């Protein structure tokens, strides 16, 4: 007979709560969603004994239960609504030895809710070096509960914690003696004042409770941390160090992802060909080999880049360095309507905007958060790279010019810089034009430096990668399927009799070439092709023809689809890039006989892709994070119109 205990885990940020959750649940974790709000629901299973399994719900890290954000709201909800299916049997409040005073605020609030509450004090391993001593027994009396000293880093106390959890029925339920009811009954105070007063009373209680039971030898406590802070937040070196680290991260990102990406690319191309050749002929086989497999391939190929970027960001976060970066960058960012905390979303955006926008959740100020969400898609995400790569190879002359740097690399770097510049500039404009009142309020904890626990880093990377694969992936796949249908079927006789028409016209070609020509003809007369021709007049001033128009439309599934679509349009049998480039070079405008992909068109295309909002997945996440259609639509139209104008101007000027 197996019993399932429900345990809620709560605690301040930086207490090792995530470590504890990971230690207890291992890979048996799930991330879900609370309906209607943008808070992740993390649950996991843990075996406490042979007969008892626990389902642990990891509540968002929070400093108190005074609900002022979605995170705190959901925590209060789960811990107080007895009928809610998530209502736990036990609550574990995790604290840590250095910040015990502050951690206990949350503890006293949770204890007041009447659930069996266990206090787990983490980081036992550093007590000696910091000169900290705690009288557990006495403290247990003061706080009216069971306390377990643990170290998630050294795996100490976990067994003891499990034992305590199993014996939860013997934990006293009486709340701590903090005269809070008098505060609640005071009608002269408004809600905020009550919370303020209540907090003060709790801190008084904590002070008394810790008076004789918690000792710190102060001169032992500092030292390393102060020295490191001096360097890392130095007015010159601080920034130098940060930008050097950033530069190295990007370099590593590029070189590390190259091989895995090539591997994935060829694997999927092989899979696609194999499917086409080995499954019975028909619509679905074609959908599979031309729509679904390339669609999934287009998602999987970015996993290396995304995983690596979040690996680096995660390590920086785990060591505590990220807080120092936010500290350094806040004043500068504020000039542009952003927050120091916008740094992480902006950097993450160079992999994918989806996890980047989600990372903006920790920005307290709504206006700063909104602006961050709106401008992050300007940063050059991974999906733009295949488009940039092929256009640059086509129209940028080879060689080294400026400072002996490779031309192609130079243009690529410029596009990255352009992305950031556009983000910052539009943030500035939005800041001046958006009339949103919000107080400039900013608090960030500066945690102690520590060695990153690779377990945590690993789980975090998995988390973020999943956000991309499921968040963006599903949408990309769905849109790919639909686009394939629109590109494979068409109205009218022209489409349906494609084979006959082409065969009659090109009697001398072999079957491979014939197939390519047929495919190209079909695409031209498909629904998408018809639409491409329809929009041609509006994109001609940008230097594009209807074929490019088709590719622009399909890019709405995912930007990199641009390349695959061009391959089909120019009847390149398989996605042989060299052949594709040959064909593109030879393409001419029928009326002028001048090449389609000349320098002006190339630049125009690069700029269009740099600024246009083509990613449906991003639209979806912005809608979710801003709770409505208003902002994602403004963003989509604003960015795309801006891209149009810039592309138009650049083509007309260069032409």
């Amino acid at each position, binding site marked *: 007979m197996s019993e399932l205990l429900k345990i809620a885990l709560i605690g301040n940020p930086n207490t090792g709560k995530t470590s504890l959750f990971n230690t207890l649940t291992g890979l048996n974790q799930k991330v879900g969603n609370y309906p209607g709000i943008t808070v992740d629901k993390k649950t996991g299973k843990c075996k406490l004994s042979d007969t008892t399994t626990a389902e642990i719900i990891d509540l968002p890290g929070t*400093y*108190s239960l*005074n609900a*002022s954000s979605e995170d705190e709201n959901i925590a209060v909800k789960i811990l107080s609504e007895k009928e809610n299916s998530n209502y736990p049997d036990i609550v574990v409040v995790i604290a840590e030895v*250095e*910040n015990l*005073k*502050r951690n206990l*605020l949350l503890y006293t609030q949770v204890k007041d809710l009447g659930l069996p509450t266990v206090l787990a004090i983490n980081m036992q391993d550093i007590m000696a070096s910091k000169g900290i001593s705690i009288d557990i027994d006495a403290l247990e009396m003061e706080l009216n509960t069971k306390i377990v000293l643990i170290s998630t880093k050294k795996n100490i106390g976990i067994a003891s914690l499990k034992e305590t959890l199993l014996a939860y029925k013997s934990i006293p339920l009486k709340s701590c003696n903090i005269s809070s009811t008098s505060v609640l009954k005071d009608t002269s105070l408004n809600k*905020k*004042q009550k*919370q*303020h007063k209540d*907090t*003060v009373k709790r*801190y008084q209680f904590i002070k008394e409770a810790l008076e004789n039971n918690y000792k710190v030898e102060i001169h032992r406590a500092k030292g390393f941390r*102060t020295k490191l*802070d*001096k360097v890392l*937040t*130095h*007015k*010159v070196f*601080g*920034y130098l160090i940060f930008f050097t680290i950033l530069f190295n991260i990007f370099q590593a990102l590029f070189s590390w992802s190259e091989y895995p990406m090539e591997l994935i690319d060829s694997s999927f191309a092989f899979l696609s060909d194999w499917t086409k050749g080995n499954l019975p002929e028909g619509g679905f086989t074609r959908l599979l080999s031309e729509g679904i497999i390339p669609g999934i391939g287009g998602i999987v190929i970015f996993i290396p880049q995304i995983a690596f970027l979040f690996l680096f960001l995660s390590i920086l976060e785990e060591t505590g360095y990220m*807080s120092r970066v*936010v*500290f*350094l960058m*806040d*004043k*500068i960012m504020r000039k542009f309507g952003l927050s*120091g905390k916008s740094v992480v979303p902006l950097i993450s955006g160079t992999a994918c905007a989806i996890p980047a926008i989600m990372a903006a959740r920790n920005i*307290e100020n709504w206006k700063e958060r909104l602006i961050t969400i709106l401008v992050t898609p300007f940063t050059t995400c991974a999906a733009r790279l295949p488009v940039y790569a092929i256009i640059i190879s086509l129209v940028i002359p080879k060689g080294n010019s400026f400072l002996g740097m490779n031309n192609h690399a130079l243009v690529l770097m410029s596009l990255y810089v352009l992305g950031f510049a556009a983000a910052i500039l539009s943030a500035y404009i939005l800041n001046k034009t958006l009339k949103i009142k919000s*107080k*400039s*309020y*900013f*608090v*960030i*904890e*500066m*945690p*102690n430096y520590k060695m990153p626990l690779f377990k945590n880093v690993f789980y975090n990377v998995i988390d973020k990668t999943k956000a991309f694969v499921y968040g963006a992936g599903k949408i990309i796949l769905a849109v790919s399927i639909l686009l394939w249908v629109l590109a494979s079927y068409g109205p009218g006789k022209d489409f349906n009799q494609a084979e006959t028409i082409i065969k009659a016209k090109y009697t001398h070609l072999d079957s491979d070439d014939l197939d390519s020509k047929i495919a190209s003809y079909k695409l031209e007369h498909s629904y998408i092709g018809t639409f491409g021709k329809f929009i041609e007049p509006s994109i001609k001033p940008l230097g594009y023809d209807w074929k490019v128009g088709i590719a622009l439309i399909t890019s709405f599934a995912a930007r990199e689809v641009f390349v695959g679509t061009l391959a089909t349009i120019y009847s390149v049998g398989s996605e042989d890039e060299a052949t594709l480039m040959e064909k593109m070079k030879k393409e001419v405008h029928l009326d002028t006989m001048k090449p389609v992909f000349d320098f002006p068109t190339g630049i125009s295309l690069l700029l269009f892709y740099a600024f246009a909002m083509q990613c449906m997945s991003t639209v979806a996440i912005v809608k979710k994070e801003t709770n409505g259609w208003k902002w994602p639509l403004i963003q989509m139209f604003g960015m795309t119109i801006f891209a149009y104008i810039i592309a138009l101007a650049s083509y007309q000027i260069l032409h």
Partner: protein
Amino acid sequence: MTIADLIKGDKAIITSFIVDDIPLKLIEMGCIAGNSVELVQSAPLKDPLYLNVNGTFLAIRKETASQILVEKI
């Protein structure tokens, strides 16, 4: 004198707040009357301020810091 007037290394006790609506989060982190505060470092442009409040290391903007009255010790 407010927190914004402290120089690096200064230690003080929080006495009161100029405005009524200091962010609750700050209070929850221990920024209440009677608790100690020390300026650990100010950012290169003197904003934000890196403080040690009642044992908690945190950073707040100068704007907020100038709303918190302290007494130097």
